[in-house]
């Protein structure tokens, strides 16, 4: 492709966007909205996935020890636990380590713990993983009967419900993303169709003087890509602010939820939205110009 041709294409795109300015603004806005919703669901689905994954890796029994249980006795208990049927691993978590982890989890809000004045209310504990996570209920009951054990906790029933819900959300989310992608495609195709229609005479003349189909198509495809790009840029900016805002809110109230950290996650989402927007813009306009090329 020659430089002068490229220049011509770029000039054509901007002339066309200018000529149909309100239509272009409306399309870019609609693309932005649908890509925003698309992005929100993408992030929701990905966070759901992350939660499921972290829950799966957490199929374990937390064995909290009585406060006056000595470390020596704990060592004996560890041996007993390891001997139990179906137990895969046993890890001792001293109360100091538990505190560190808790602080880590609180992140910025670990100043809250200053109220505790260096005292540590957390007990020593064991983390017991099982060969078969389904056995968690019986195993926990057995463990709870052992001497020195305050309680044995596991989150199995919660988990089973969660698995059902996440599966539903995943299916629903993907279906919705698909529909939104189609809608975006349709919107861009329609806008480009209007510009193509307004310029059908010009297209016919181009065909008569021997322009190739791709030469005619490129400015329109580029226009679709520019609209997709502008729409997705707007959507990305709003998405980034929204995600930052929402995660901050959730950390404030539901700090235990394992959300995906903003970076680099948001960069990936932005990339997906922008590339997706441009591809849909290109396809949308390529589809709508097809009919006008038959001269």
């Amino acid at each position, binding site marked *: 492709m*020659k430089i*002068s*041709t490229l220049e*011509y294409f770029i000039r054509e795109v901007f002339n066309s966007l200018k000529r149909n300015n309100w239509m272009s603004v409306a399309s870019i806005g609609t693309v932005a909205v649908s890509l925003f919703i698309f992005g929100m669901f993408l992030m929701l689905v990905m966070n759901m996935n992350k939660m499921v994954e972290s829950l799966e890796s957490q199929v374990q029994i937390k064995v909290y020890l009585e406060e006056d249980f000595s470390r020596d006795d704990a060592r004996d208990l560890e041996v007993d636990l390891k001997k139990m049927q179906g137990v895969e691993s046993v890890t001792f978590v001293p109360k100091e380590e538990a505190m560190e982890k808790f602080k880590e989890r609180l992140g910025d809000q670990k100043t809250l713990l200053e109220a505790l004045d260096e005292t540590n209310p957390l007990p020593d504990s064991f983390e017991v993983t099982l060969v078969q996570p389904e056995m968690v209920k019986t195993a926990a009951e057995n463990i709870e009967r052992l001497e020195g054990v305050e309680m044995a906790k596991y989150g199995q029933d919660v988990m089973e419900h969660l698995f059902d819900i996440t599966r539903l959300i995943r299916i629903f989310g993907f279906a919705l993303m698909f529909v939104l992608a189609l809608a975006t495609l349709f919107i861009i195709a329609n806008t480009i169709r209007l510009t193509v229609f307004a310029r059908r*005479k*010009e297209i*016919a*003349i*181009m*065909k*008569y*003087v*021997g*322009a*190739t*189909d791709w*030469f*005619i198509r490129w400015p329109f495809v580029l226009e679709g890509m520019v609209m997709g790009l502008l729409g997705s840029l707007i959507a990305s900016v709003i998405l980034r602010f929204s995600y930052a805002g929402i995660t901050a809110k959730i950390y404030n109230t539901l700090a235990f939820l394992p959300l995906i950290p903003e970076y680099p996650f948001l960069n990936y989402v932005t990339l997906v939205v922008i590339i997706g927007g441009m591809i849909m813009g290109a396809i949308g306009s390529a589809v709508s110009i097809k009919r006008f090329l038959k*001269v």
Partner: protein
Amino acid sequence: MIHMNDVMKVYDNGAVALNHVNVDIKKGEFVFLVGPSGAGKSTFIKMLFREVLPSSGILTVNGRDVIRMPNREVPYLRRSLGVIFQDYRLLPDKTVYENIAFAMQVIEAPRRMMQRNVNNVLDIVGLRDKYKCFPNQLSGGEQQRVAIARAIVNSPAIVIADEPTGNLDPDTSWGIMDIFKSINASGTTIVMATHDKTIVDAMQKRVIAIENGEIVRDEARGGYGYEN
């Protein structure tokens, strides 16, 4: 240049537009295509640049097999032709210069060549001083001259004109014909469909008459042959 052997055109609705047409047009010829409206002149013209695809027969234009040519080669066929219509078909938001340069732009001609060729054809059609005008600032004759300039700017081997003087008064029409004569004198083949009896009678060029899709007359130096 143009060779038709037993060319048929039957439209989808069953109408026979051209029936067993045999024609040979040589390089440098000036050919008038005459006949009543709906006789098949337009179909004849449109087949030459493959806006209409013949149903059967052999059609070669500039040595290219128009019927068996794949779609992607059609633009290259058209680059070797200059097409002129009754309604000029200029782009209203482009100047005279831009309208003509447009034909070179779309075939990605080098920019330096573009300027030279456009100025050159502006001289041929006598519109050098109006290159900045927009089509709506020009008379019909001037607009048609811009269309001619656009058709010849890529130095086509054949110029195809469909009723180029159909919308113009006699004086203006003669101005257009003078341009065609000089283009023809430089070796370009010209095929022109027309209803203009005066012009055909006066020019004494080859005349092909089509009626009901068939060639009924083909004279090397003929007249219009119909009463207007």
